[in-house]
């Protein structure tokens, strides 16, 4: 460690109401209105709610039906993960412009270790503010930033800074800051752990910090007690682990109603294959292994994999292969709740490509042309006839 390393080198950058904000950016008419991103179907949940919607008590993971009862005038938008991924990619590039130590947690949040960036960009809180301003200026989106001595505290700070704020927690103020917080704010404390702690009168982080080790062990067990005790005093030694290229990708669909029609399953597979193939092409990789995942109505889940002779980034081929795996299961009127398709064994696509004698790569060209059209005119611009709604 260099002597000049700052005391609070860790940033946690978290986008505010990410999906909803992206949607508002794409359709300015949505700005300032309660926006819910998520599925409208029977089992749809809120994936993201704008701040205007949160006023009504709506939060993510809430069933859509309930959210709409709370705020009937909310605008519901179905999620467009490809668009979010695009923004996420640009976000990541922005992060990487200030430090190589970027650990993404999801599409819209990441830890950054800017301990080595001070001479180039200034102290961490300045870098944090710079990132927030650049995200607003370059992506047109709101983000909140936590600046703290470690990951756990940085994440707490960004949460307290929302919306579009920055909270810098100095090393000397950790105890005072943490002490007041409810135990629920600690990493890894869920409903059950919280309830158990509260039964012993432990409500704030300070209460936990002041509890003797053996007592804590009796309440929550060995492993959790050790973690809880160090988090309660603001200790967290986990380093920021930089992003590694994806080893695989997957997508899945939970049906509104269980499906037992093989034709519908095959069609859904085509949709999943399209999604995966686009993501492969966007990432300029091709996959050699594909995995079909099926969850039956009774929640039993099976997966079937196949490794191809040659890697592909080709929806038609992914569909044919996954449909063969589906056929091999010989489902006869079995009710299926969820269908998923994943790929792994990724290789750079730009490299050598084995040409074919048959079908002349025509589908491949069609798919690439469709990519171009969708990138320019939006996702609905081009689709397969098989995926058009009936009627």
């Amino acid at each position, binding site marked *: 460690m260099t002597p000049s390393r700052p005391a609070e080198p860790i940033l946690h950058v978290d986008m505010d109401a990410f999906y909803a904000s992206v949607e508002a950016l794409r359709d300015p008419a949505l700005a300032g209105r309660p926006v819910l991103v998520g599925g409208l179907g029977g089992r749809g949940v809120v994936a993201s709610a704008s701040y205007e919607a949160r006023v009504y008590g709506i939060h993510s993971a809430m069933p859509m039906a309930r959210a709409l009862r709370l705020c009937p005038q909310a605008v519901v938008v179905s999620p467009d993960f490809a668009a979010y991924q695009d923004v996420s990619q640009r976000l990541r590039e922005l992060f990487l412009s200030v430090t190589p130590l970027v650990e993404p947690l999801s599409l819209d949040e990441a830890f950054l270790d800017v301990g080595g960036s001070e001479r180039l960009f200034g102290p961490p809180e300045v870098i944090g503010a710079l990132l927030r301003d650049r995200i607003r200026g370059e992506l047109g989106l709101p983000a909140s930033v936590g600046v703290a001595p470690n990951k756990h505290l940085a994440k707490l700070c960004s949460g307290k800074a929302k919306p579009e704020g920055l909270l810098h927690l100095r090393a000397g103020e950790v105890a005072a800051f943490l002490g007041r917080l409810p135990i629920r704010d600690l990493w890894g404390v869920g409903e059950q752990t919280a309830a158990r702690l509260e039964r012993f009168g432990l409500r704030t982080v300070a209460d936990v910090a002041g509890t003797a080790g053996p007592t804590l062990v009796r309440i929550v067990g060995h492993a959790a007690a050790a973690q809880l005790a160090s988090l309660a005093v603001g200790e967290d030694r986990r380093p920021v682990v930089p992003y590694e290229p994806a080893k695989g990708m997957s997508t899945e669909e939970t049906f509104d109603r269980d499906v037992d029609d093989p034709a519908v399953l095959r069609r859904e597979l085509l949709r999943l294959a399209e999604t995966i193939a686009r993501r492969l092409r966007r990432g300029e990789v091709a996959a*050699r292994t594909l995995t079909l995942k099926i969850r039956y109505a009774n929640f039993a889940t099976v997966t079937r994999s196949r490794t191809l*002779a040659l*890697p592909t980034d080709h929806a038609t081929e992914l569909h044919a292969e996954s449909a*063969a795996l589906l056929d*091999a299961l010989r489902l006869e009127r079995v009710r299926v709740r969820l269908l998923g398709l994943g790929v792994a064994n990724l*290789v750079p696509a730009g*490299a*050598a490509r*084995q040409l074919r004698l048959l*079908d002349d790569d025509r589908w491949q060209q069609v798919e690439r042309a469709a990519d171009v059209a969708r990138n320019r005119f939006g996702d609905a611009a081009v689709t397969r006839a098989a995926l058009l709604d009936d009627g």
Partner: protein
Amino acid sequence: MKFRAERSEFADAVMWAQRTVGDRATLPALSGIKLRVDGDRLFLASTNLEIDSALSVPVQGERDGAVLVLGKLLADVVRTLPNAAVTAEVTADVLHLTCGRAQFDLRLMPVEDFPALKEPSADGAVAVMKAEEFARTVAQVARSASTDDARPVLTGVNLEATAGSLTAVATDSYRLAMRTVPWDQGADTTVLVPRRAMEQARHAAEILGSEVSLLLEPAQVTFSFSDRRLVTRLIEGKFPDVRQLIPAGFERRLTVDRAELMEVVKRVAVVGDSNTSVTPVTLHLSADTVLVKAGSGEIGQAEEALPGALEGEDLQIAFNPRYLADGLDAAGSERVVLEFRDELKPAVLRPAPADAEAGPASSRPEADFLYLLMPVRV
């Protein structure tokens, strides 16, 4: 049922029948081999519902009868038997095997559950081929068939019979192998035979020698050997029209020593070998030299040159080394001719006519083999 058999003959018959034993999951009886003694012959049968195998071996029969035993278990047992005569006797629901001082009791399965096997029609016109030529043809062609069930028609070998010739073709869409042999049966028929059935028939032809007779029918094909028979179901669907894929001409032609090129390709390809992707080998062709290169800066690189005579302009073309080596291996001749248009068009590989005996096609057994190979775009 009771019989006495030679260990090696019995073991060989069981192993062969075991190759087409079915999958226990679908129907338990399919995982069995049916043994039937009739006089001094033991008949064995197995089926996986795609291929039916039947054969008979001479035994000393003492009591007629038929039983069904678990194929894998029986095969595992006979594989380990000492080299002595085998005595088999059924008592109640057990097959009792004795060989030297070894004794086995194998539980029987209900023989009445074993399905009836497909029968060739009695009046069908049968064509006869030399076993050696049949085995060679299958070996040359079948490996180009696809192993990918997503496109079932490509997992088979297409047999096209016309007056005087039989053409066998297989392709996995990356390469294609085609062989034409004389055929002594006149009727025009085309059948698409599962690759595994062809391999099983080849195996029989190789160990038995002599002759194989083929009966092509609309729904099944029968391969018969002296004491063995295979009846296979066909793959449904239309095999692609492959003749239109074969280029009519060429712009460059390379003549090169087959074994030498194969050795160089395999050696150089080692640096490109990786689990996740196939790294191509690139052939740099000039007037009298073939330079074979593979690899990248990341793993390592290799190159090796060998003599080769090129007609036409210099060319750089890349191939999957496995597909190229497969084609060279299948060609079998001393030298091969490779015809190219450009680096993105299919190449044609043929055995080169031997200089000494450049006679009519019928006197050159390899001249009717063709291997079509798609390049890799780099």
